């Protein structure tokens, strides 16, 4: 019989919140649900339980505990935690059952040859779950239901050898069978009345007598208690969707606290991608912004429902190569948000990553070095913050003779080609470069016999003097079928200034009649 592993997360609502705020793990935390002011405790962690907090307590009752941390239940974060749990399970086996939001069963058949013996697999599952910010119980047993019961009942890692299910599960309280609604409340009450308090007692009941009193449901419960109830696993096809979301207690206005949340979310996102052996090339940050903010001064716990979210702010980060470094992502997002601030308080953060296969590249020993893609992206983002995003990159010439016929594009150098790198002996003769004036310098030109004889630029004092040599005009035009047609005469001129002779390109726009100095030959 193939073994099964079960991941069970006790206090799932609390764990979902703690993924983004792990510092609260050491404090008493209670999760509230309901509309204010009728909010009641829905879940709590061990510290809160030790302090006497129980499910159903009201917020007023909790006010007696001074160091109690209160949080509102977040279905969005629970969904994200559930997706993370499935990602973790999927990283071990393709056959995964999505039993409940807090319970996942994994078929481990054939996984020994990949991950090692089952105790090692169980430890590895617990470690990866912990990496995803979730503290879970892991149990390995010969059938799914025994694994689920063991994970629900025993904290930490539990291994049940085949045939020892009844012995190991026997000490569990009878409530364990009903925690995940395996039976209804009336059956539980019946067993309580009979004085059955643990699974060993239930397993010891005569089967026929139990069947006569409780029907097939009773027999099923007994088989569950014995660890004999077996069923087919219902595998789920886990979609390759990597999203993290956070609903904030208070709207965030500054970028620094936002970076704190983004850091946590990116770490979780990268851990999930890493668990599936994937990287990302596109990150999308969607922020729900508050346009009206009514802070309830009298309430200790402000309600996010009092805010009216009406606008969404979205930024997409596209990378030239697949990356998986949360620190790089965070810095890039910070630089991007600094250049393009949201402009309103943030209520919800939604971060998604487009999964791609990781970059597989190997540098050559004898090839010239290339900037590391991670460092290069960060450097380019920082440079864009200094000169502007559209002023940095590589250029691409357009198929036109129009002046300034180029466009800037993202700089992403390809890996060096070994054969091309060897062919460096080819020497090309130097060409005369034009140093362009942007924008072109408006000029006052004196003509003599149709040729420019003197030039003066009011905004560039150094371009002034007699023209001692001219060549041209060279006429060009284009795009006459468009609205922005162009037509011009170009002259190459040598101007005698005080100490030297300088060469310029003088241009006359035939449509406007303006003279400009386009640049200097250098």
């Amino acid at each position: 019989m193939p073994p099964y592993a079960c991941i069970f997360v006790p206090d799932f609502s609390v764990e979902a919140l703690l993924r983004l705020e792990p510092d609260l793990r050491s404090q008493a935390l209670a999760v509230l649900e309901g509309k204010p002011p009728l909010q009641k405790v829905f879940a709590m962690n061990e510290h809160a339980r030790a302090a006497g907090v129980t499910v159903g307590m009201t917020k007023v009752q909790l006010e007696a505990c001074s160091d109690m941390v209160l949080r509102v239940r977040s279905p969005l974060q629970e969904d994200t935690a559930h997706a993370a749990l499935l990602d973790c399970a999927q990283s071990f086996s393709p056959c995964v059952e999505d039993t409940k939001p807090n319970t996942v069963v994994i078929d481990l058949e054939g996984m020994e040859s990949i991950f090692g013996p089952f105790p090692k697999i169980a430890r590895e599952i617990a470690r990866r779950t912990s990496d995803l910010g979730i503290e879970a119980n892991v149990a390995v047993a010969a059938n799914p239901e025994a694994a689920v019961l063991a994970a629900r009942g025993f904290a930490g890692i539990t291994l049940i050898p085949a045939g020892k299910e009844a012995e190991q599960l026997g000490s569990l309280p009878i409530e364990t069978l009903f925690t995940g609604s395996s039976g209804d409340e009336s059956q539980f009450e019946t067993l309580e009345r009979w004085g059955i308090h643990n699974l060993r007692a239930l397993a010891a009941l005569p089967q026929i007598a139990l069947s006569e009193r409780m029907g097939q449901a009773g027999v099923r419960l007994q088989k569950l208690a014995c660890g004999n109830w077996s069923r087919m696993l219902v595998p789920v096809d886990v979609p390759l969707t990597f999203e993290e979301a956070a609903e904030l207690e208070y709207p965030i206005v500054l970028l620094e606290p936002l970076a704190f949340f983004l850091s946590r979310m990116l770490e979780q996102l990268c851990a999930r991608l890493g668990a599936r052996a994937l990287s990302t090339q596109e990150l999308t940050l969607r922020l729900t912004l508050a346009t009206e903010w009514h802070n309830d001064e009298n309430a200790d716990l402000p309600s996010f429902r009092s805010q009216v979210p009406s606008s969404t702010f979205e930024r997409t980060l596209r990378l030239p190569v697949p990356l998986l470094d949360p620190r790089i992502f965070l810095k890039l997002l910070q630089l991007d948000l600094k250049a393009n601030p949201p402009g309103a308080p943030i209520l919800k953060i939604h971060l998604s990553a487009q999964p791609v296969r990781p970059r597989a590249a190997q540098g050559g020993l004898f090839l010239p070095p290339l900037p590391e893609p991670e460092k290069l992206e960060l450097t380019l983002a920082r440079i864009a913050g200094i000169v502007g995003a559209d002023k940095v990159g590589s250029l691409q010439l357009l198929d036109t003779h129009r002046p300034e016929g180029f466009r800037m594009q993202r700089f992403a150098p390809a890996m060096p080609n070994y054969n091309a790198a060897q062919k460096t002996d080819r020497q090309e003769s130097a060409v005369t470069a034009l140093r362009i004036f942007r924008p072109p310098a408006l000029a006052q030109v004196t003509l003599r016999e149709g040729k420019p004889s003197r030039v003066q630029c009011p905004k560039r004092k150094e371009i002034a003097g007699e023209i001692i040599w001219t060549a041209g005009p060279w006429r060009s035009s284009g795009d006459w079928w468009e609205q922005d047609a162009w037509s011009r005469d170009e002259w190459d001129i040598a101007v005698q200034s005080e100490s030297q002779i300088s060469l310029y390109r003088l241009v006359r726009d035939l449509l406007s009649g303006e003279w400009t100095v386009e640049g200097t030959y250098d």
Partner: protein
Amino acid sequence: MSSSLFCAVAAPAFPVAFSPRESSALSDRLAAIPKLSAITPASRLTIRPVPEMISSGVPELDCLTAGLPRGCLTEICGTASSGRSSVLLATMAAATRRQEVCALVDASDSFDPVSAAAAGIDFERLLWVRCGVGNSATQKNLSRNPLMVPVEQALRVTDLLLQSVGFGLVIIDLGGIPFRAARRVPLTTWFRFQRAVENTPTVLLTITEAPCAQTCAALLLRLQSSIVTRVSAGAEPAPAHAQVFEGLQIQGELLRSRLHRHHEAIKALERKPAQSVKAAFTTQAVKVS
């Protein structure tokens, strides 16, 4: 490093006279103290390794300077129309032919893509940073002097590029910046750049109107040029449309070199410091097809 000899309770306020026996014991004790490991005596200083030289893309200049040194700052200066940009394009073209990644920090935003394409530069390997044209938000922490804004941007960008190692050639083009602004770049900045590229395979090249980096530049080259024209046959005197701008006759002058002493031109420079060594070459005008 502490020693029992220096951990005396208190130094006496009067001169102490040692007997010969005590003196010899003191000498022995001093000799036994281990030397400071982090300090190297001047007599044991090693000679700096000779930097690798790469081609500048102009054979005549390579003959003059033995190439451009990696891990050093090279300065090329010259006035307008002296051929600085032509040498720059040739150097970038040679670097991209070697499959190296280049970065051009264009302080005056004067780079001409058409000339660059004619020079054979692989644009995929060229990072072009256009300074001086950012919006007001990007210029918040920069100088109030509009003349210094592009210079400050260029220096900041260069700092970032040098930190992000992996570039084969980093060029700071201050050629279009007035010299009165370029010379305000502190010497410490050039020193910092020089230290940043030291022991890296990066060639740091700066183009200026007049020497700015001073002693931080391992190689200082000055360029001058004269115009080369061609006149179509037949017409005398030649009309303007019969004349063609052929290119520039560029003369390079090696003013300073702190590199290896094996090269003939550099030996000549050392023997006659008052006299520089020169080389000349001609560029070709860009033909638009």
